[in-house]
């Protein structure tokens, strides 16, 4: 696009972000400060993710953007179009075809490959922020690997509710050293972080932090020996494709209490349907 540098950001800014990214990859799970720029979208809509994507994007890349698993929601559509216009890169909705995937709140169901990069939009990079209000103190806790407090939170959950009640943004230990917030992905997706072949980059624009998980890194969800981590999934098959192993969205379909559970990963669902899988809703349509 005329009047703009490739992928919107100027080269000096990209250089600064790439330096932060290199440092982040070198210390898996460690939050690296960076000079976050003002972007043409509000904080909370993915300013961190979009800056990281702009810095790693090359002319040959194929970009996929998802929001809550879906390719067709406002946030996903506008960020995808933003890069199509400012960088002229090819875009796709197919997980397998993409080389860079920017995501909000989900990891695609399909296993990622070692030639792919996944960029997460992060609202709050500090996993301890609800427990310890002082940033100076949380930085010291990270430096000394003093993470007893996070386990106190898990202890409190079990004492009060009988189980660990965190359903998203479930804290993880990266490489046996750093406590990390995986961004608000459902706890269901946490096992996918572990030893993922793709490079995982996290950008928090408002909080001005970047962190990363290099390929094949150990990522463990925190738990107790007698209360192990359990990924939670709604106990239904997908209404459209019949999948019993994917993460589901609950959709209200009428005002008489009707509910439909469908795959949150729209691309995964569409590919399954194209391959001939049919869910209960599809069967109903066929009968009519």
């Amino acid at each position, binding site marked *: 696009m005329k009047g703009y540098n490739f992928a919107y950001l100027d080269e000096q800014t990209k250089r600064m972000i790439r330096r932060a990214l290199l440092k982040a990859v070198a210390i898996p799970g460690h939050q690296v400060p960076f000079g976050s720029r003002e972007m043409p979208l509000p904080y909370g809509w993915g300013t961190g993710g979009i800056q990281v994507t702009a810095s790693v994007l090359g002319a040959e890349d194929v970009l996929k953007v998802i929001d809550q698993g879906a390719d067709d929601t406002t946030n996903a559509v506008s960020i995808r179009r933003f890069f199509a216009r400012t960088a002229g890169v090819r875009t796709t909705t197919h997980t397998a075809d993409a080389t860079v995937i920017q995501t909000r709140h989900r990891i695609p169901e399909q296993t990622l490959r070692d030639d792919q990069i996944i960029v997460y939009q992060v609202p709050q990079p500090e996993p301890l922020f609800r427990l310890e209000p002082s940033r100076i103190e949380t930085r010291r806790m990270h*430096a*000394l*690997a*003093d*993470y*007893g*407090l996070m*386990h*106190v939170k898990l*202890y*409190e959950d*079990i*004492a*009060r509710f009988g189980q660990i009640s965190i359903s998203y943004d479930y804290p993880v230990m990266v490489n046996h050293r750093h406590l990390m917030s995986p961004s608000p992905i459902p706890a269901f997706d946490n096992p996918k972080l572990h030893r993922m072949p793709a490079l995982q980059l996290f950008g928090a624009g408002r909080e001005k932090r970047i962190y990363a998980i290099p390929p094949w890194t150990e990522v463990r969800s925190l*738990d*107790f*020996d*007698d*209360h192990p981590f359990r990924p939670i999934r709604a106990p239904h098959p997908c209404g459209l494709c019949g999948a019993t192993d994917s993460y589901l969205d609950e959709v209200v379909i009428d005002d008489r209490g009707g509910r439909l559970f469908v795959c949150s990963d729209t691309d995964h669902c569409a590919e399954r349907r194209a391959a001939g899988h049919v869910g209960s809703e599809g069967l109903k349509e066929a009968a009519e």
Partner: protein
Amino acid sequence: MSDDTLLSARGLSLSYGALTALVDVDVDLWPGEMLAVVGESGSGKTTLLNVLSGRLTPDAGAVWYRDPSGHLHDVHAMPAPALRTLHRSDWGFVHQDPRQNLRMNVTAGGNVGERLMAQGARHYGNIREQALNWLTQVEIDADRIDDMPRTFSGGMLQRLQIARTLVTHPRLVFMDEPTGSLDVSVQARLLDLIRSLVTRLKIAAVLVTHDIGVARLLAHRIMVMQRGRVVETGLTDQVLDDPQHPYTQLLVSSVLHA
């Protein structure tokens, strides 16, 4: 300094600008011993406690701590992670105001369990069992384990703080006026509790107090401080029954006998 002291300090001096808080203070503490530091407000007692525990760095002098394997560590030359580990395992700190130490938005059980979890305990059942055990030891009802500290009375809060500190079986506990903010009857019970726990678990302690009665009840040895200097030191009964220094004499004679 003999070879079996737990904690030794030599020549500690510290001033806050023009204000001198400590002048050439020596301290020796043996395992299982309770040392009381008495003196009026502003005499440097709390500063001494903070310097001994590594929270403040002195202008001159050094503090050595002997770990369980017999090695001596210069407390102020220790790397921060090592000092932190020491503070959450071998050492404990009991504040005058329990709210400074407790997490007020975490249940009693979570408060007691935190040090265990910080040390790497990862079995919920065991942590809870130990928390229950310690609440019972400090005479808090077992069914208050899931209650918030803000629903506790002042005396209960102080006992909860003691449970939270002692759960990791520290060898050395620093106490800053542990009974200072409590009424007299609660004080008596708490002193009784501290005495029995410390004797049974063979914990060494440095106890800062302005209350001669507390010192007489708990401490083996006593140090009297005035304007940052140690003016008299010795066995508690000896010092209190036969004070030599004029300031100690004044201190002892000013206690009301009921």
